[in-house]
């Protein structure tokens, strides 16, 4: 961020040159976007930090006051917060692991260019354009007894009507299923795109050396895919809680708070209980946690961006 800002302050120096070379003047094109985007994001984040240090609550009649780290201290005693952390971990890593595995297999299928499966390459990615709210609605319908048919067909194979959205464990499973449906295509398309760039000679050489199909996948494709896989993993973890609309429409965080993620809890605290200060502390704690988990991994992103930057 600091460098991005220095980049802007460098504008006059560039303009001062008589003929600044082919990059002169371009920074002025970049500056508005950087200023607007940072203004629309950094300022609100700072505002959230400020809010999290206050007792702002729209239900309280007492005047808002500065409480320091009081909200954060309260978090440690808040069982609902701790539970929401666990549920977040389940609803982040559960779907992401399944998405990575299925996405890899799907990418393999696409990459083989099997005759008669061309249409599947199109179908595969349709969920990527689905509004998450419709995804949630669709799966809510499917999991609703009578309406959805899932329970009827499970009944035919001897599984007696599980109460999908009324049982905390099954509700988590239902949300995982919806998230896998929605975001596996993203992983698959990323892997498939990367696979297309792998040099054919490597596969040819492996084949001449007598490597079987599975060995080629294991010893050529997988190692080549490692960096892409890490980048995709980071993206998926970062965006995993974008399943908010799905939770909202399928379970509203229930039953008994069993599917409430941290961002959902912040939503409830902020907009149902109207405790804005406390809600800010909830979501910021989560942001810090997320950054702490992802910080080591961002090196990888940085490197791949660096490559992109120097490729020109």
């Amino acid at each position, binding site marked *: 961020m600091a460098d991005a800002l220095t980049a802007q302050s460098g504008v006059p120096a560039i303009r001062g040159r008589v003929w600044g070379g082919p990059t002169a003047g371009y920074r002025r094109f970049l500056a508005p976007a950087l200023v607007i985007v940072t203004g629309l994001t950094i300022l609100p984040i700072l505002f959230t930090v400020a809010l999290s240090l206050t007792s702002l609550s729209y239900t309280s009649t007492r005047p808002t006051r500065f409480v320091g780290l009081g909200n954060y201290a309260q978090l440690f005693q808040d069982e609902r917060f701790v539970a929401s952390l666990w549920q977040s971990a389940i609803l982040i890593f559960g779907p992401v692991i399944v998405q990575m595995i299925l996405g890899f297999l799907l990418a393999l299928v696409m990459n*083989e260019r099997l005759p008669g499966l061309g249409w599947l390459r199109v179908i595969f990615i349709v969920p990527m354009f*689905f509004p998450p709210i419709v995804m949630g609605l669709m799966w809510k*319908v499917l999991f609703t007894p009578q309406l959805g048919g899932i329970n009827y067909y499970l009944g035919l194979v001897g599984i007696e009507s599980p109460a999908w959205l009324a049982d905390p464990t099954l509700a988590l499973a239902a949300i995982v299923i919806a998230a896998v449906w929605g975001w596996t295509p993203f992983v698959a398309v990323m892997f498939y795109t990367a696979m297309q760039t792998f040099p054919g000679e490597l596969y040819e050489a492996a084949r001449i050396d007598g490597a079987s199909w599975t060995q080629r996948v294991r010893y050529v494709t997988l190692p080549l895919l490692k960096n892409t896989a890490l980048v995709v993993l980071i993206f998926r973890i970062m965006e995993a809680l974008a399943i908010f609309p799905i939770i909202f429409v399928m379970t509203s965080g229930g039953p008994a708070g069993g599917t409430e993620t941290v961002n959902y809890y912040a939503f409830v605290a902020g907009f149902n209980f109207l405790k804005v200060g406390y809600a800010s502390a909830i*979501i910021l704690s989560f942001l810090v946690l997320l950054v702490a988990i992802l910080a080591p991994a961002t090196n990888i992103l940085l490197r791949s961006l660096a490559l992109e930057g120097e490729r020109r």
Partner: protein
Amino acid sequence: MRQRPPAITAALYAFGFVWGAIIIVPFLWLATLSLKTRLDAFAIPPKLVFEPTLEAYVQIFSDSSFLNAIKNSVIVSVGAVVVSLIIAVPAAYALRNLAGSVRRNSLLAILLIRTVPGMVYLLPYFVAYQRVGLLDTYVGLILVHLIFNVPLIIWMLTPLWSAVPRELTEAARIDGATPLKTLLLVDLPLMRSGIIASAILAFIFSWNEFLFALILTRRDVVTLPVAIVNFLAFEGTEWGKIAAAAVFIVMPAVVFGLVVRKYMISGLSGGAVKG
């Protein structure tokens, strides 16, 4: 990867077809629900063959709140895309022409914004909008859409643009054209299809956006994803109507999405994975 044992080929086919079915069947279920009468919708065993009715569609299109939501969704999505393009296209153009370190740091800064869960933004925007009267306004909603659409377009266009040869740009610059002139006369026409694709993708993201619309709109500016939730809350038993609304919301996103699918990866990954 041509030679495969037949067993592997069979397994790949099987997996492909199964996944195809997993994608299609849930949506077909929803779509048929929108064409069923109430009685057929709750029939056990589920009626796979039934007499379709367009009743639900007639209902949603005669519902003034739904029509209003369509209008709002179009205004907000188109508005957000236009403003985002005006901001992001010159930025992507600059990033393509700037040196490695500026480009890397800017892309990274823009990328970091994506790490932040939407809820972090929602609270301060809600508090601020309430003070300044931007709740339930087009301007207020379009403004927050810039948070995700401007980065999206920059990520998508920068790598695409970098792949376009720079000789023409440099020739124009050496002939004395200003950067702005070069952009408008030389580079924009070359990037036309990429820009259209990024606009479509940004449109889909705006069209689908739910969280901000849920909190930052009240009545006048309610968009389709929120309208459908209102259906669910107030007419929770009208499944045909809810399904019809869902099908209607999905359609533009899917149709447009398929048009631009080959551009999508660079937009969603910021060029972090070569596309």
